[in-house]
């Protein structure tokens, strides 16, 4: 039955129907197939139920934070700070890109926002600095993967809402893997900088410039503290911290940088509501399909098959990761997450995998799909903002995918990487 639904989904999607409509068509076909036409109202129940969890409210907030930061000049201040910090190194602009992505990841929960905000400034700068355009774009796309791993994260919010896992704990669990990913890209860039003989931007380190840029970026650097600190000390839920971060960035844009105009606020709000709408309608539609798969006991049917070949929890995770990676290549990421989480989380629980560990592995897996051809959304964004041909990008993106996959394998086989910090903080 799952295979039939998958075929219907891909046929409708290939015909050019929007993703949510393809999913609704699949859901309708599924309801007919399981002979529950009398229960068609379930489509509305599940559609509404999928959008309703309070924790999902954080998604528009973190999108709005990113939008307001771009319009209030805080993003460019973060980039200046990153340049002052690591711009003096050989191939400095590459380091600036990765460091900026790490910092930006602490404010915005989306890889796309990261790729767009950092890429629009850094790719032209790297090209100007003598970097091959495909490498500059690849590094930006690769670094954007840090966005959904370091808290806050839209993918983690979704995963938490669907599996009833503590979103705050997931956020904390993402810190070390996110930094690991950042370090991996820094190491990769260091090797590439030597191989490609990349230039140095600033000839020497300036402590004065670092102090000045820190002063300029202090407001932006404070935002992750509000988000993570509020959750950590129990003042706020992730959703509430998102709302407070919106208020904070709005005030900073109006009173600190004074670059946030009425037009900027209006544009930020309009972009946020449209993006949120697209995400949530996909979530609603995918929830219906997920319900059909669950009601047909797909996870229970899958469990013995997997356990037959995968003996240890790590092998189960590896098996799940391979499937998610393949599906993620050909399916939109949020849809993949909403569809696959209800299928694989019971399986992971049965294998004795910690929900936090599974959540981080799943999030990273779905995130890697953002840069894999043919559907990698971040590749399209970077290609567009950096004026790099898509074919060229798809050809040169694989080393960055490989680095992310190595981090993924490390996470699978060393669970402590994601579980150490939450345990230390009592989660």
């Amino acid at each position: 039955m799952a295979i039939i639904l998958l075929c219907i989904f891909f046929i409708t999607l290939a015909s050019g129907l929007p993703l949510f409509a393809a999913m609704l068509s699949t859901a309708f076909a599924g309801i007919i197939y399981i002979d529950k036409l009398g229960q068609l109202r379930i489509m509305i129940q599940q559609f509404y139920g999928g959008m309703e969890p309070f924790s999902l409210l954080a998604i528009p907030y973190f999108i709005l934070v990113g939008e307001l930061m771009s319009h209030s000049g805080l993003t460019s201040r973060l980039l200046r700070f990153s340049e002052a910090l690591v711009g003096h190194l050989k191939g400095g602009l590459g380091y600036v890109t990765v460091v900026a992505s790490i910092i930006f990841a602490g404010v915005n929960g989306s890889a796309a926002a990261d790729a767009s905000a950092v890429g629009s400034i850094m790719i032209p700068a790297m090209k100007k600095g003598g970097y091959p355009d495909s490498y500059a774009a690849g590094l930006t796309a690769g670094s954007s993967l840090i966005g959904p791993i370091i808290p806050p994260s839209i993918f983690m919010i979704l995963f938490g809402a669907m599996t009833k896992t503590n979103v705050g704990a997931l956020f904390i669990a993402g810190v070390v893997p996110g930094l690991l990913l950042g370090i991996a890209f820094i190491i990769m860039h260091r090797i590439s900088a030597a191989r490609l003989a990349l230039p140095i931007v600033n000839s020497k380190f300036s402590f004065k410039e670092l102090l000045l840029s820190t002063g300029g970026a202090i407001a932006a650097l404070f935002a992750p503290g509000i988000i993570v600190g509020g959750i950590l000390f129990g003042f706020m839920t992730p959703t509430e911290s998102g709302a407070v971060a919106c208020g904070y960035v709005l005030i900073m844009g109006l009173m600190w940088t004074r670059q946030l105009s009425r037009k900027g606020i209006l544009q930020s709000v309009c972009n946020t509501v449209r993006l949120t709408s697209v995400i949530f309608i996909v979530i609603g539609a995918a929830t219906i399909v997920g319900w059909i798969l669950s009601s047909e006991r797909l996870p229970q049917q899958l469990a013995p098959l997997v356990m037959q070949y995968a003996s240890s929890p790590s092998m189960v995770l590896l098996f799940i990761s391979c499937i998610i990676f393949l599906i993620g290549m050909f399916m939109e990421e949020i849809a993949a997450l909403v569809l696959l989480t209800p299928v694989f989380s019971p399986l992971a629980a049965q294998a004795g995998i910690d929900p936090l560990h599974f959540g981080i592995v799943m999030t990273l897996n779905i995130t890697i799909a953002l840069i894999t051809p043919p559907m990698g959304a971040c590749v399209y964004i970077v290609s567009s903002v950096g004026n790099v041909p898509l074919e060229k990008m798809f050809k040169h993106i694989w080393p960055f995918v490989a680095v992310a996959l190595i981090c993924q394998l490390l996470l699978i086989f060393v669970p402590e990487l994601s579980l150490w910090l939450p345990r230390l903080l009592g989660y």
Partner: protein
Amino acid sequence: MTSMATLCQDISTKLERLCLLGAGALLLINVATVMLGVFSRFYRPPIWTTDLAKITLVWMVMLAAAPALKQGEHMAITILVDRLPQNSRRIVCLLRKLCFISILALMIWLGFTYTYKMRLFTIMTLGIKKSLPLMAIPVGMTLMLIEYLLQQFTPTGALVNLSTTEASPSSDTEYQEHGIKER
């Protein structure tokens, strides 16, 4: 451009502005509601903030769906269809349009019937009928259908003919600020 096309374009633009105005206002109400819940925590926190936030979110999402459709932001893959011979492509496009209209119509019908059934239930914290938040789904789908039909009569209708040429960036991905749309 014919007068019919001009009229449709005008209605479409006004509808988009109206929807964005409503959705934007709801987003701001939503943020304010949640912040009120946070800051009033230490002094008589209101019990209705969570429910109001959920309702405004669903309405915001459904109101913004039509403008997102107009801007071509709902992810669609037409790279395969674009490679078909012209006659085959026409047939697929026609079937796609019919399928899209049918799905929206189905959701509108199901939405209104389910909303009507739920009119007897009340959300205790807000003292409103359960049908009010549920009404967002059929209303949003109706607005999307109107927008889609209007686009069929305008020259820019290509956007909503769902003919994005590549696998366009996904949902949380298209950053409008930089005008990214793979078409």
